[in-house]
């Protein structure tokens, strides 16, 4: 399977994603330059974390106008798999590929820490290797990570089962204390209606090796691989 990792000026997690795909998954990874319009025939696009265009104005707001994003949007419309991590999630909401918006953390500070997530949906390209309501440990590292949306959007997300991850405690309960950043409904990750675009604030690429303190993140990428091998790739 071939993963394309978009590099915007200011992206800083692209090499981490590349390492994971190449060394852990042992699949193909290639960088997609922001100014290009060539998706190089990839099967899944990753929008990595970082500070695209310095996150000036608003996180992700400039990146969504990069030439490559037109191609990413067309790719997504055709059902191609798109995973936005952290800044990637912010870009996806700015681009309108995912609803809602992401604002400053409740603490108004940058927060880097492990969080526990409850997997709310497992019948997705991104979580099929997880079990329903499984609790996974994946770290966050962001200053702007509080997911917000209007009431109708939230209701729709809930009703349509598009909330994929929620911050939870060790007992897998969704509590205010388990919410690190003030996201509405403890939302850590959502997908689009078709289910082929996922945005998440936590960084799965940072916990896919035991030596880094956790392997739960690998499940996200294994899920993508399994999904692709099971159907989409045929």
């Amino acid at each position, binding site marked *: 399977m071939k993963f394309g990792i978009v590099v915007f000026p200011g992206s800083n997690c692209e*090499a981490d994603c590349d*390492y994971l795909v190449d060394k852990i998954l042992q699949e193909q990874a290639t960088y997609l330059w922001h100014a290009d319009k060539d998706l190089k025939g990839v099967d899944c696009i990753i929008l990595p974390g970082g*500070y695209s265009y310095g996150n*000036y104005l608003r996180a992700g707001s400039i990146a969504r106008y990069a030439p490559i994003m037109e191609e990413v949007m067309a790719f997504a419309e055709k059902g191609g798999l798109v995973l936005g991590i952290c800044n990637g999630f912010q870009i996806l909401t700015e681009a309108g590929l995912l609803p809602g918006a992401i604002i400053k953390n409740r603490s108004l*500070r*940058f927060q880097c820490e492990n969080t526990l997530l409850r997997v709310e949906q497992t019948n997705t390209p991104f979580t099929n290797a997880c079990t329903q309501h499984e609790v996974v440990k994946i770290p966050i*590292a962001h200053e702007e990570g509080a997911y917000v949306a209007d009431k109708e959007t939230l209701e729709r997300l809930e009703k349509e089962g598009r909330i994929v991850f929620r911050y939870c405690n060790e007992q897998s309960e969704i509590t205010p204390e388990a919410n690190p950043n003030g996201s509405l409904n403890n939302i850590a990750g959502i997908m689009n209606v078709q289910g082929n675009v996922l945005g998440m604030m936590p960084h799965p690429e940072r916990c896919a090796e035991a030596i880094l303190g956790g392997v739960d993140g690998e499940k996200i990428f294994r899920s993508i691989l399994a999904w692709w091998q099971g159907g989409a790739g045929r």
Partner: protein
Amino acid sequence: MKEDFWRETGLSESEYELIKEILQREPNEVELGIFGAMWSEHCSYKHSRNVLKQFPTSAPWVLQGPGENAGVIDIGDGQAVAFKLESHNHPSAIEPYQGAATGVGGIMRDIFTMGARPIASLNSLRFGSLKSKKTRYLFRGVVSGIAGYGNCLGVPTVAGEVYFHPSYEDNCLVNAMGIGLMNHEDLAKGLAHGPGNPVFIVGARTGRDGINGASFASEELNDATKEKRPAVQAGDPFMEKLLMEACLEVIKTGFVVGMQDMGAAGIISSSCEMAARAGTGMEMDLAKAPRREEGMNAYEMLLSESQERMLLVVQKGKEQAVQDIFAKWDIEATLVGQVTSDGLMTFREGEEIVAQVPAKALTEMCPRYDPEAKEPEYLAQAQGYDLATLPEMEDYGKILLTLLATPTIASKEWVYRQFDYMAGTNTVVGPGSDAAVIRLKGYNKGIAVTVDGNSRYVYLDPYRGGQIAVAEAARNIVCAGGRPLAITDCLNFGNPEKPEIFWQLKEAVAGMSEACHELETPVVGGNVSLYNETKGEAIYPTPVVGAVGLVEDLAHVTTLGFKQEDDIIILLGLTKDELGASSYLSVIHGLEAGKSPEINLELEKQVQQATLELIKKGLALSAHDCSEGGLAVALAECCIAGKIGAEVALTDNIRPSSILFGETQSRIVISINKSKIDLVLQELKKLQVPYKVLGSVGGNTLNIAGSGWKVNVELAEMVEKYQEAIACLMKG
């Protein structure tokens, strides 16, 4: 020339006379400004250079010692590590966010200038009391400045230290350390070789920010200081990120002759240092240099400290190839001049020469001073304090909890949570441990990094304090499973023109040098920050040591936390009746007195070697150095980190407060599997290292029994005090 003008540049009368002699004429105002900046302490080290010569700087594994943008050491497999510690104290005291942010930016440029990709950032911070509103403002601003810059760059901030002490109330210290990884063949230097080679200014445009920053950093702070706010630069981490990627890509082409960051004293310092090192000269047309605003004169252009700029010397004929790479990253690269063979720095504005001075006049020919040194008067009295007269306070459990909640000792989670310490997916051990460990992708090895410096020890005995700073940094590396290889240092002191301050500096450096010799950790770079005084009051003398070690096998990575029930706890080293200079004295008795703990470097070496040996054999499951707060705090920290209690007996025949809270050096607490006890004791005997079996891991309290006294503290209570102290104070 008018006297007030050259005085304003910070030059003395004799220096002014010397300049006239060198030039064989009166300097013009631009030239005088250049000399003022380049002969400032910050750029010239004129008061400290002779002292710094004591440092051992070489070893077979040192690829680049002091004098370049950063030191470089060999770590095997064709790889090398570049690292350096640098201060940004005065800017941070005036404008904490930008001061700290640009401190990080500057040190990272020093790293990638050498051709190394930055892989970790560390910091060492000193503030006044958190009870003061001003300190909270400075602390909050500095931490978010470091976070704002480092996080954006994507360089993980993996370790650091913070001390709070009233002597830093108006003069906080912000020392930032950068660490980079490179292949040997990519090592780049700041050399302007090859007359005729083109010179480029690359990166951000030059503005009026930070003019005279070097001179500003070389004087004491006072009431007028806030007017110096314009001397503080503003950082743009996004620009730096692009500049970093572009520079690393350009270095790979092999077309770069030399490269240097524009730090203090901007264009002038980078250009004359590159030329002086190479024995060449340079001519530059300032009119060509991109600027942020119109009407900037030559003086402002040369001395501006606008951030995110580099000076590059490129092979002739490769101009286009280099410019193309910068263009790809949307970075301006402007041809401004060329290397010359005349040894002169010639600056023009169009056709007109605005300044012309020999490159070496600005660097090597700066006068060096050996100021008078005199032992300060406070010392004899403070050292002579009779600690035997101290009442023995008996509520040891409460004292332990008080120490754990003391900001200097308490968890720094409030700080490091704001740092992205995981970026790069190499952080095997992050903040909150003795040393951080960064793995090296593609190899089963890593590097251990730490930064350390206890100024109370230095205040009460600069020589010992200097020795301890080096020894403790090395000890931290060992506790993480690494072999210490080299250090970088930042010497934060008061005004060296005062004999008492200079004495502190001289003694501390002598102590550090001896420890570096003994522990075989040469100094490969660093920085001096003098004039840390406010209204005539100096900070505590604060040498900070950053150390790098090699973890030969990732299986050796060790952390402080106790691991499991029934493991045996062993103390390596000896405990003496030493309360002098301890946190206990300061926090509980309000006393900063007595003698700093003794240090026997031979014993230190033995303890470190034994610990590393046990770690390598897989026998030591945890390791933690005894430092501030003594053995009791060390044990508590092992419990807190391991989320498990312990039961120990401390039977030394000295007073309980010394056993528990004395800060005797060269001690490491390890824990081992119960079944390995015979093997471990055999090893320790063979290594002839003093040790004591203290007890075992388990339960949810820390129980310490002495002869006729005991301490029982709940783990949960320790965790609460330790974890929440700083967050709690920051709400005030």
